[in-house]
């Protein structure tokens, strides 16, 4: 089996930052001492333990500041997926007596969809609120689905696939009026939009360390003061009893540094990424016939360009791009483990055959202007070649 294809000519162009991000070298530097120099367990009462406690709480402070939260509102977990589990399962377990109905959106991350299915199996009622053709949740449709048994709504801040940003402030406002708690999976928007819980008052929010160029294996659940959740992982009572296990100090120190850097650099970085995105979108739509942009034309993440090309299939596109040293992503079923096309694209009203032809580029911190050129030089030929093979494409 061939594991890595090297184009052998030009260095690789990585345009799949939504899948995984490299850790910023400045972050790695800060993490190193916590593997063997400051290695204590914050729960211990000796000197090494005290040192670790100070670091842990300083880091918590920095991460809280990054989203405008209070230190006590930050719970460390092992990943954003775990944060999603803790938020939905932990909250509904705690509020069982109050109601048994929750709402999620059709375009939420797959982890939210699968957690919701699990809750359904365990007796909860789940409603999925549809979106418009651009992937946006309508407030009217959301409101129509709230009933007296509704205890929680979980709406992703932005789509990790098509990049559409939800009207989160309005959603938070509506749910507050209705007395329904709001969880948001903010991972896709992290480091791309200024997220501040004072501006968008959510009750629960999932974050990931890697999505701001910190190490993997660390997530955060923001739990607003007064929001009760039941723990899922029981043990020594760390994280105010909500998430036991010895704290992953190197990763926490890394995420704190990553948050600090992101706090300083977000405005310049995102405006730079937005110029790449806009140039790519314009270039692709102009140079490739029968190509379309998926997601919202303006309310979209600054780093996301998501296309679909008629009569060709996404995995074939990815393979061909891979041969040219370009890494991208697709919502095609042929590249997924389940052989089902992206639920997000289907929710936007696309037919299966259209969802198969999708291609996603996501920019990040280490991209250059010339990376856009590489795609624009390469992609039109690839699309044309695959269309020549395709019985679906009507030759002009």
């Amino acid at each position, binding site marked *: 089996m*061939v594991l890595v294809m090297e184009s052998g000519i030009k260095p690789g162009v990585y345009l799949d930052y939504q899948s995984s991000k490299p850790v910023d070298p400045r972050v790695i530097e800060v993490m190193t001492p916590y593997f063997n120099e400051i290695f204590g367990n914050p729960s211990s009462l000796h000197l090494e333990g005290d040192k670790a406690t100070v670091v842990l709480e300083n880091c918590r402070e920095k991460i809280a500041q990054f989203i405008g939260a209070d230190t006590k509102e930050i719970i460390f977990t092992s990943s954003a997926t775990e944060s999603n589990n803790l938020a939905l399962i932990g909250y509904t377990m705690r509020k069982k007596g109050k109601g048994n109905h929750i709402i999620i959106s059709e375009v939420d991350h797959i982890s939210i969809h699968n957690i919701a299915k699990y809750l359904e199996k365990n007796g909860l009622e789940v409603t999925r609120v549809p979106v418009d053709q651009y992937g946006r949740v309508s407030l009217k449709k959301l409101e129509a689905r709230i009933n007296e048994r509704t205890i929680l709504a979980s709406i992703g801040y932005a789509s990790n696939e098509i990049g559409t940003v939800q009207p989160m402030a309005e959603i938070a406002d509506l749910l507050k009026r209705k007395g329904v708690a709001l969880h948001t999976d903010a991972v896709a928007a992290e480091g791309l939009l200024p997220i501040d819980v004072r501006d968008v008052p959510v009750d629960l929010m999932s974050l990931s360390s890697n999505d701001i160029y910190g190490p993997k294996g660390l997530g955060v659940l923001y739990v607003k003061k007064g929001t009760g959740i039941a723990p899922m992982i029981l043990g020594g009572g760390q994280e105010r009893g909500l998430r036991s296990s010895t704290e992953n100090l190197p990763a926490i120190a890394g995420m704190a540094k990553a948050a600090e850097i992101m706090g300083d650099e977000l405005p310049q970085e995102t405006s730079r990424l937005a110029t790449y995105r806009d140039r790519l979108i314009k270039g692709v739509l102009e140079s490739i016939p029968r190509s379309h942009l998926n997601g919202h034309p303006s309310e979209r993440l600054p780093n996301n360009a998501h296309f679909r090309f008629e009569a060709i299939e996404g995995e074939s596109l990815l393979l061909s791009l891979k041969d040219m040293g370009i890494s991208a992503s697709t919502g095609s079923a042929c590249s997924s483990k389940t052989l089902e096309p992206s639920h997000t694209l289907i929710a936007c009203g696309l*037919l299966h055959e259209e969802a198969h032809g999708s291609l996603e580029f996501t920019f990040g911190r280490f991209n250059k202007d010339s990376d856009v050129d590489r795609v624009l030089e390469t992609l039109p030929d690839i699309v044309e070649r695959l269309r*020549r093979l395709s019985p679906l494409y009507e030759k002009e």
Partner: protein
Amino acid sequence: MNMKSTQYSEKTLDHFRNPRNVGTLEGDDVAMGKVGNPVCGDLMEIYIQVEDDRIKDIAFQTFGCGSAVATSSMITELVKGMSLDEAMKVTRGDVAGALDGLPPIKMHCSNLAADALHAAIKNWREGIRPNDLSTEFPTYVGKGCAAPSEPIKGESEFQGNGVYNEEMDPSELADKRVLVFDTGVESAKLAVELEKHTGRVIFMTPSKEPAMDADLKKELKKSDVKILYESELKEIKGEGEVEKVVVYDLDEDNQYELFVDSVVILRPT
């Protein structure tokens, strides 16, 4: 080993990058086999030219993933020159084996290539030629493909909330996902018109080739209207307003849901 869908053998990648025998064939000595469905992400057409009960020449066209392309290409190489009886015995295992194996999840692609070849041979033996295939399907032309006489489930419930039975001011539908059901030429004209007002218009027809003159057909195809052939509208659903429809795919004999905001079924008043 848990292989990723894109971890292909060198040989598979070679056939994907440099597919052999791409194209179509024409002539009295040519038959074609077609399998798959774009809905599932794979569609294959294999053409064979037959002389003295042997495959003299072969060509293919494929819409699909890397292994769909590679298996089509491989099978054309495998069977070129074979007698029809020999070619009928080529299995999906032979195709996958010739490519040095495929990821398990991709085995169905090699199945398709063998099926398309076998279909071509069967068509040859039954005297069915490529041109017959396009006309073999029943069309609704001349049968008065008017509105379904029975109202569709949900049609009356959503009157005024997304269902339209007569022409409307197109600007009402700006930014909506509109499904126009084929009730004849007027509905096709309306679909083309609506496409100027909203980015998403789907024209759904039970037919394989909807009844309309060549100019309108050309206009429809040139526009961004998405045409959904061989499909029936089963149900309109939503929470107080139209949110999705249930579509029945006549060709594949299966049902699926499609998210839309409006449904237009022009009915004679």
